[in-house]
């Protein structure tokens, strides 16, 4: 293990390290801690200039209550969910299939298609913006959740195909050959042999895509407009102009908007990191 395990070092350094950890963490998360503090302060603290002192009163419930019951926030959150969840399902379904095709079969153009998926996944969003917006308008899906979902599914399929294909490549191929010798059809091999083995990959991709799509801002403002279909990342700017300079409410709103992916991360940490660090180890 590198660096040298702390257990092998002097008692003094061990204690220093233990003390250093929380200090470093607080410094690292300082901007976030500041926002958390803001979100439980009462309005009067800000008007009287008490930004950083002890809160005048503990207003957690009333601040977050306002976010949930007196603003459009719940609607935006619901929109985000209705955009994110179908995207996750659609992307995982499509990429299981493309990954299977590219990972199992040898045919002309295999690598070419594979690299096209990877390349497409790297392009800047702006090169797609004008035509995708046009296409969405032509499909009569501008300013709808469906329009956003369809685009997200298509774009995320690039990254997910890379992921799934490499995962399937690492599965034991004799398994598939054995099934073929038994006369199992290719379609059934996919459903009964390969899919059950892909569960960890599906879990990892699901949490990753959930986070990516929930946090998307650019496409939300390009393809949607109002509270009917905008997700929370875009809605938060409208929320903030409604409560301009009401820092306690803006902070509470931001925390609420950021929470679902955070919860997802802490619940499925192992899968999340496995997905994110794909390829970091050979």
């Amino acid at each position: 293990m590198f660096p040298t395990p702390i257990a092998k070092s002097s008692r003094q350094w061990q204690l220093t390290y233990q003390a250093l950890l929380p200090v470093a963490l607080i410094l690292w998360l300082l901007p976030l801690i500041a926002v958390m503090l803001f979100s439980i302060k009462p309005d009067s603290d800000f008007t009287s200039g008490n930004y950083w002192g002890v809160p005048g009163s503990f207003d957690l419930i009333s601040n977050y209550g306002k976010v949930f019951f007196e603003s459009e926030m719940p609607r935006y959150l619901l929109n985000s969910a209705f955009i994110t969840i179908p995207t996750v399902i659609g992307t995982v379904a499509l990429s299981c299939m493309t990954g299977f095709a590219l990972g199992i079969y040898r045919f002309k153009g295999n690598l070419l298609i594979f690299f096209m998926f990877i390349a497409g996944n790297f392009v800047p969003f702006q090169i797609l913006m004008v035509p995708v917006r046009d296409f969405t308008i032509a499909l009569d899906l501008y300013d709808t959740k469906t329009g956003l979902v369809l685009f997200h599914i298509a774009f995320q399929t690039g990254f997910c195909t890379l992921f799934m294909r490499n995962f399937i490549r690492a599965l034991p191929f004799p398994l598939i050959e054995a099934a073929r010798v038994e006369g199992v059809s290719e379609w059934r091999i996919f459903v009964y042999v390969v899919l059950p083995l892909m569960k960890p990959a599906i879990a990892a991709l699901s949490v990753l895509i959930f986070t990516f799509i929930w946090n998307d801002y650019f496409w939300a403002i390009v393809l949607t407009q109002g509270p009917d279909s905008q997700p929370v990342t875009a809605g938060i700017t409208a929320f903030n102009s409604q409560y301009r300079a009401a820092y306690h409410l803006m902070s509470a709103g931001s925390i609420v908007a950021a929470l679902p992916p955070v919860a997802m991360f802490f619940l499925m940490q192992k899968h999340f990191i496995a997905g994110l660090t794909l390829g970091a180890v050979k």
Partner: protein
Amino acid sequence: MTAVPDIRPRADTRSWYRRNEIAITPWLFLAPGLLFFAFYVIFPIFQSFQVSFYDWDGLGDLTEQGRFIGLDNYRELAGDRNFEISLWNNLKWLLLYLLAIPMGLGIALFLNQTVTGIRLYKSLFFFPFVISQVVVGLVFSWFYLPDVGLLNVMLGWFGLSINILGSPDTATYGIIAAGLWPQTAYCMILYLTGLNAVDPEQIEAARLDGAKGPKMLWYVILPQLKPATFIAFVVTIIGALRSFDLVSIMTNGGPFGSTRVLSFYMFEKALAEFGFRMGYGAAIAVVLFLIMLVFIAYFLWSMWRDERAAR
């Protein structure tokens, strides 16, 4: 039950599909994904090139309502001061964003220990990456607030004060610093995973040879972390060139347009200003795409090489 072995000659009785199953199946499986990807990603790239040769406000059909003007959009770009500023800012982003890699490695080395609670520490250090860039932008713009922001309160203890986002000289650096926060977390997690897989025997052997500290890191550890470093480079460069959310949230391009980057300037020209200039916006997007293409080509070439070696 007794199984009756099928001894009939099968090749002739099977249907055309069954005979060609292995050749056809991959295409059936690829079809939906390929179709989606073609219509939403591949074709639009070429369409953007086409749009960039037109003067078009986005209404009606491009070739009917738009006016073909050849390279005029690109000629205009060459003399556009705001385009020049955006280009320079992109360069700053690119160079400074790379700091996320050594910083991430530093934190990973700091946290790669086995003491009680270290798992929670690792998760909490990684935390900023999970938050949306919109919220990161808001959090940092409050952190930077003149007079009342936490940064200025702390600087105030030393008699200093700075209005980071209000001054054209510092605003871009302030935004990049905000972007480095989640990006460093990402690089950290890549290196933590990489460090986990470093071969302990090699380290022991190197220790016996008297290697330690920076020398050990440089000659023994870093070579083994190469795959992690490669991915860190890819995601950091792509992230730097994609920067849009933070600029849009923190300064909206200001003060005096000093924080614009290509991705933001393109959006501004095509959608946010009065009278949408789709053609001009597309031309900016094409320039950004060509810059990115240099990196994409390099990444693909590296991956292609590994792929061949694996065969």
